């Protein structure tokens, strides 16, 4: 069973509401009929085997891809805003400030020709910060939090290992203090030892900052460690969802039972 998360008293209103999301690729189902609510500070995991529609769903939720049906609404101030009915530039700006996206491949989330400090600082400039000293100080602080030595601040990401690039991407996303973070297989391409380090870092950051997150993973141990709630996908559909430890320890759907038994004591 998972450790007690450091959470604030439950909020009254959801941060994100998702209703009937569908994404077709021609005749092929990417994902279909997905609905859920996400509350501030909550961490939702999406699990399922390769091709089950996890990435497709995440792209729709995060505004990267437009669903063929359904609604995604995000709480802005007091209002729930349909993210696909607002003008494109507004959505783009939200994607950089109110929420953040951690891509599986750090190269998709980083500017490879810009220094580590620049990658982090750029996000503060997006928010309107123009004070060079403060931006650099903040970038340094974030590099430290993701365990990248401050002396590497002027190096480019391509001089970093895969694990460091991923940590830099996380710093770049978290520096703008998003209320919601989307992550697609954040530890995907990394060695097991590097994964453990990154996972612990994510666990602590998500907990201490109280941000909500949607994390796609095929690794049930990762889901157990990081998430409060789990959605299990198969062939584009959600077959089971609930409290993470409940879904993993007492799975009800045939497919979830198969998944859970494949990884003993995940």
């Amino acid at each position, binding site marked *: 069973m998972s*450790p007690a*998360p450091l959470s604030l008293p*439950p909020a009254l209103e959801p941060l994100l509401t998702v209703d009937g999301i569908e994404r077709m690729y021609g005749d092929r189902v990417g994902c279909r009929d997905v609905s859920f609510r996400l509350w501030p500070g909550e961490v939702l995991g999406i699990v399922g085997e390769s091709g089950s529609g996890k990435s497709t769903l995440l792209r729709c939720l995060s505004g990267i891809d437009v669903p063929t049906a359904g609604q995604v609404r995000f709480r802005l101030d007091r209002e729930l805003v349909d993210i696909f009915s607002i003008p494109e530039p507004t959505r783009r700006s939200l994607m950089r400030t109110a929420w953040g996206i951690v891509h599986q491949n750090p190269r998709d989330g980083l500017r490879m020709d810009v220094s580590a400090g620049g990658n982090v600082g750029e996000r503060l400039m997006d928010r309107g910060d123009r004070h060079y000293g403060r931006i650099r100080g903040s970038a340094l602080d974030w590099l430290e939090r993701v365990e990248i030595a401050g002396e590497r601040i002027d190096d480019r990401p391509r001089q970093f290992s895969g694990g460091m690039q991923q940590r830099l991407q996380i710093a770049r996303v978290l520096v703008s203090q998003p209320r919601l973070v989307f992550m697609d297989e954040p530890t995907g391409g990394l060695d097991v030892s590097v994964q*453990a380090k990154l996972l*612990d870092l994510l666990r602590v950051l998500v907990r201490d900052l109280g941000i909500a997150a949607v994390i796609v993973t095929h690794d049930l141990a990762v889901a157990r*460690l990081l998430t409060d709630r789990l959605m299990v996908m198969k062939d584009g559909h959600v077959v089971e969802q609930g*409290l993470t430890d409940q879904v993993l320890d007492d799975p*009800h759907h*045939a497919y979830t039972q198969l998944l859970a038994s494949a990884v003993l004591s995940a």
Partner: protein
Amino acid sequence: MTPMLRAEHVSKAFVLHNQDAAVLPVLADVGFTVHAGEAVVLAGPSGTGKSTLLRILYGNYRPSTGHVHVSHDGRMVDIVTADPRQVLEVRRRTLGYVSQFLRVIPRVSTLDIVRDPMLGRGVADGVATRRARDMLARLNLPERLWTLPPATFSGGEQQRVNIARSFVDTTPILLLDEPTASLDAANRDVVVELVADARARGAAVVGIFHDEAVRDRIATRRLDLTTFKAAA
């Protein structure tokens, strides 16, 4: 007496979809109430469903029928129908579960593991550290281990970390699944004392104890699960 936990008509059958949808009936129509200060010990031979019941009370397993009402913030919450974030909130402040296994978190030190639930409840950092240290000392865990993650500790050492974490700031309801299983006599005595202290503070306890002597020292009441055994 204040009722802290009430199980009503709890039944559980596992449906094993990948074994030809075999149905494994375990519990049928279990009902009981636990009041503040009581320690109910679940009895019955191995395989009766003691752990299954405890997990249902914690919201970890879903019963096939029935409800589990838990006193949380002065009102009764049904852990079976509560949504996930309510269940997590009830667990954070009201409902503690201790098994014989520590679920280790990579890279987190023993001291931080023990401090963690207190910090989650808003206990000040310094206070949490002091209480964590006192509890680890009381459970005779050598101080040189406190700064290390328990991944490499022996079974008994890990179990003591788990007990320290769970008893350092006890919740009003404690669910204990053989927490003394691999402890020596001295540490078992500490656990018996810790449970008594928690009860004295008004905690309601539901527990499973393999050791007959421990069971007799802790129980204020026994619940024999063989009487609720589902027909196979």
